[in-house]
Structures are given as structure tokens and as C-alpha cells.
């Protein structure tokens, strides 16, 4: 199946930043090989979920082919269905991985800790000020 590739001129609808361009476009890939693990991994999150179109920048045809390829590769154990992410305690860092995926929360008893970094930051700031004045 040949994916039609038209560059959309209207990227004003996108909030902030420039229009995402799929790797498939920038590397001119016209057949998504389900054996190409390294390519497919770029369309998966670190928990091995398939990235959404709004994250990957695929058009619908590309997304369908990528999804199909990833699922084929999973059946043949080339790619994982899931992969656990090791959690570090404390505030989860909000990195640029904006695929809307829920990062594993720190254990329950540390739920109140989420506020602590904020107060900590303020505390150190005021201390700094005191030091400068003194």
C-alpha cells in the first residue's frame, strides 16, 4: 500500500512549536518492514506502547502500517508487548515524552512527598537570600 504524503500547510492549529514530522517522511521510508526493530522502536514509548499519531507525526496510513508492523514484530518476539520502567522515588520528572502516558507513581505512602520538593525549593531560596544578606 502506498501512503500518500501531503505536507499539510496549516500547522497553525498546533499549539506552540512547529509541526511534527514523522520519521517515515524525513527518512523517506515507503515500506515499513516489520523486521526493522530499530525503526519500529522509535514509534514506541519506553513502556513499549505504540506512540499516538499526535506524538509520532504519522498520517493515518503511516500509523496503520506502523501499528501493523509492530504487532507482527511482537508476535515473533522481536518487540515486547510490555516493558517495565524502573521508577525512581520522589517527584516524577516531566520530560518531553508527552505521549500522555501515565508514569508509574511512587508508592502510596509517599503521596504527600509530592508537595515537599516545592517547599524545599522555597526553603533553600530563602536561605540563599539570608546568606547573601549576611
Amino acid at each position, binding site marked *: 500500500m502506498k501512503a500518500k504524503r501531503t505536507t499539510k500547510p496549516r500547522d497553525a492549529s498546533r499549539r506552540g512549536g512547529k509541526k511534527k514530522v514523522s520519521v517515515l517522511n524525513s527518512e523517506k521510508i*515507503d*515500506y515499513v518492514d516489520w*523486521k526493522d526493530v530499530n525503526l519500529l522502536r522509535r514509534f514506541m514509548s519506553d513502556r513499549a506502547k505504540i506512540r499516538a499519531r499526535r506524538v509520532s507525526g504519522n498520517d493515518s496510513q503511516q500509523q496503520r502500517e506502523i501499528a501493523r508492523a509492530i504487532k*507482527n514484530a511482537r508476535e*515473533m*518476539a*522481536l518487540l*515486547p*508487548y510490555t516493558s517495565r520502567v524502573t521508577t525512581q522515588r520522589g517527584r516524577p520528572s516531566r520530560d518531553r515524552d508527552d505521549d500522555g502516558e501515565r508514569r508509574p507513581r511512587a508508592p502510596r505512602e509517599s503521596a504527600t512527598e509530592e508537595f515537599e520538593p516545592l517547599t524545599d525549593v522555597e526553603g533553600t531560596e530563602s536561605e540563599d537570600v539570608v546568606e547573601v544578606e549576611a
Partner: protein
Amino acid sequence: MRAYELMVIVDSDVDDAGVKAVNERIEQLIVADGGSVVKTDFWGRRRYAYPINHKLEGIYTVLEISTTASNLDEVDRFLRLADDVVRHKLIRLPDAEAERRGLLGAAAEG
């Protein structure tokens, strides 16, 4: 003639001779139906992305096949019955991709 791609995972406990036997049997079945194995890509031992049957690796082979339509039922049946074969996947290659890999041209000659 159509181009297909067949990936076979043989159990990691099977020795080299066993793997060869499986691959030869596949080729035999395809040739018997007037097709041809254009390319055999032996990947060798590869770690699974997740354990299968409590094993962590398998022996992968990818075959590029050119044959007329639906002559592969027999191959598929053999692969499903063979105990040494952990998994297999048979994919019809789109004509454009087959041409790019030179599968259809080679079939016309052979």
C-alpha cells in the same frame, strides 16, 4: 507469481542439523509446488523480547519466497505441526516491495 516472506523460529534446543532439516523441508515443499526460495536469511540465535515456553532465545530464519498464489498451505500446515518450530509468520509482500528486492524478476528466470 507472488512474493512472500516467511519467518520461522526454531526452538533453541534444536541443534544445527535440526534447523537445517526444517529449512530444507520448507524449501522442498515450496519447490514441489513450483515455487522457489529466492533468498534465505539465517539470523541465527536471537533473544526473544519476552520469554516463550520459558525460553529466552530462539533460532530465526527469514525466507523470501516466490510462488503462485495459495501454494503455501502445505508449508503452513507443516510449520504448525512441526514440534521444533516455535513460531512462524508468512507475509505476502506488496508487489512494489517485492520488485524493489528483485523477487519477482528472479522468479521469472528460475
